């Protein structure tokens, strides 16, 4: 049941002639109709609209999956582009999927809410003597302190500074100079997004075929 061939050959249940005219019309057209299959076809069409909740969810899942992959590749490229990145700023590359329209983005913009928490660098444990109580007695170095305690959770600002550059900063301690823009994000992200777009397009096609298939098999 539910085979596409039933639709034309009319071997399924509920088959009736679609022939026209009193004599020989059916022979002329050579078509018989399986009403169950036709109904399934109509249902499939309705389900293939993106306004269908189920279909929409499935499409968004595809977009999310591919955007995540694109984000990971972009982050890896950014990591490679940075000569020294002790605070693991490359992890601030983030992705998001839109709710209203089908789509999403990969960005290094500031997070809108405190959602993401990044792994901090673990403190070095130097005291491995089991008889020595009282914890790690070696004080944290200035360097470690700096790494662990800078203000703000989002490291995206480091990336944005390096990616877009800064103006000269004159502080009370002197001229701190300007950061030249590296533009590493724009060199790598669009490329990975193009790849994601192509994969999404293919996946969409497969998804629509699957939706159609499901309906025809469930008739």
């Amino acid at each position, binding site marked *: 049941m539910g085979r596409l061939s039933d*639709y034309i*050959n009319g071997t399924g249940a509920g088959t009736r002639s679609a022939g026209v005219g009193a004599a020989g019309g059916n022979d002329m057209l*050579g078509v018989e109709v399986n009403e169950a299959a036709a*109904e399934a076809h109509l249902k499939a069409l309705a389900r293939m609209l993106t306004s269908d909740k189920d279909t929409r969810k499935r499409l968004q899942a595809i977009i999310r999956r591919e955007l995540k992959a694109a984000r990971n590749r972009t982050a890896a490229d950014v990591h490679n582009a940075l000569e020294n990145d002790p605070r693991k700023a490359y992890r601030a590359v983030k992705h998001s999927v*839109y709710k209203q329209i089908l789509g*999403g983005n990969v960005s290094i913009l500031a997070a809108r809410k405190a959602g993401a928490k990044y792994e901090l660098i673990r403190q070095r444990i130097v005291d491995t003597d089991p008889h020595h109580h009282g914890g790690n007695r070696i004080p944290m170095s200035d360097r470690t302190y700096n790494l662990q305690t800078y203000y703000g959770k989002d490291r995206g600002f480091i990336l944005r500074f390096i990616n877009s550059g800064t103006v000269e900063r004159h502080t009370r301690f002197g001229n701190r100079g300007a950061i030249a823009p590296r533009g590493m994000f724009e060199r790598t992200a669009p490329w990975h997004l193009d790849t994601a*777009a192509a994969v999404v397009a293919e996946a*969409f096609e497969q998804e629509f*075929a699957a939706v159609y298939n499901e309906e025809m098999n469930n008739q």
Partner: protein
Amino acid sequence: MGKATSIVRLTAETNDYEKKIKQAQRTFNNFTKSLGIDMKKVSALGLALGAVTTAVKVAGDAFKNNEKIVDEWGRVTKSAQSVYDGFLNSLNTGNISGYIRNINDIVNAARAAYDALDELGTFNAFNQINEMKARTGFTEAITAFREGTGSKESVRAAAEALKGQLSERQNYEQTAYDAAIRDYAEKRGVNEEMLRKALSGSYGDYKALKNLPLTGVENRYQAGGMFGQGTGYSYQVKVAANEAEALGEMLRKLNDNKLAELQALGKTAESTAYEVSQVDRQLVRALGQKRVTGSGGGATGGGQKGLTPEQYAEWYGMAYYTALANTINSELKDAPIIQESLISEEDIAIEEKFADAIETLAERTERLHETWDLVAGSISTVGGALAGLEDPTARIIGTAMQAVATLALAYAEATAKAAKLGPVAWLGFAATGLATFVGAASTIKNTTKGGFADGGIVPGNYYNDQLHTADYGISSGELILNKSQQNAIASQLRQAGGMALTATVSGEQIRFVLNNYGRRTGRGEVLTSKFN
């Protein structure tokens, strides 16, 4: 802060897709109504699935920023369009079987044309800066040389660089022109070389050629008239006259806008070639050398001052043909009456043969009339079956789809082995053809308001013969075919044997689309028509 990008977005344009799905639903429902079934379901699956698949492709394309995929889609669309155009053309000419034979050539030419034009566009987009640099370099080198700071070698090198750039562009333009000519010739079923010649300007403007009457100058001069046989000037005039008339006859079938477009493409390539020659002239002038003219090129060279040998050859060729064309015109004006005494025995034999041929032709015409009765009978059978369909759109689709289904199947078999397109693009191709057809039916519907000299479907919702022409009452939805269309269908029925009669309104088409679908999903060829 600089202007570096901090965000990249991916969005799907689903409007088109949604629209087409809804259109598919409407088509589906309308078609069921037309078959007199009250439920919203029937065998229009071919149409509906076709439109849906196209929609899926369109939605997919919204994501396809990848140039390669977009190009492939462009090629497929262009091919489908050419196949469709060629089909319409064959309906007018009645040469359906010839069209089926050439369908592969049409597709290949269309793909080649798309590629060539695309390459030209890409080249122009990215190479303008290089060309400008080369041009500036050349000018600067000349200035430096004049001021005594540069060397001859540097001027020559700069000229070579500029020429290289220009030649490359000219190469692309020429390739695009060639491909476009081939594409159009294949599509309209005309000779490629003749089309090229007609647009080359050898015979002047192609519009003038279009107006040249078909006088049969060959026959008039064949008999030995004032020129006689031979290879001299007069003989060449005769040949050229024939050629011009043949070209005019061919051009009358073709579209003016398209011809102008092709000619413009050709002229671009020509003007680039001229630019290359100008660089040579500038180089010679800048270095203060004596210019090489066409005097060494041939016996009659050296006439035109300031032309390179190549330009001279071109000019001479055109002047020659212009002179020929003028002579033809003057000769035709006072064409001599062939005198009896000048006609040789050989000529008389030719005349007799000609008379025989006319007799044979007359016989064949009679036979044609007899055949016509049979054909008319067949047409009325088909018409009777199709008359049961209420929807006028369904009627025209019913007729046309029979042909297209067969064509598409032929194409499927022909290209299945090449499999360059792959099943997905293939499905897209099939769907495009279908969607075009659905669109075409409604276009026919809209454009057939008023007269029916070109055939068409009576528009509107007026039944019971409410609409009146001079002598007859007609109803909306009736299909009117003009004489050439009737002949075309008649010859189609004759040539293709059972093709039109055994094909089904949607059976073939559905089978074609769904079999592709089945192959793709590994279900195998799931559909068979019980009548085939």
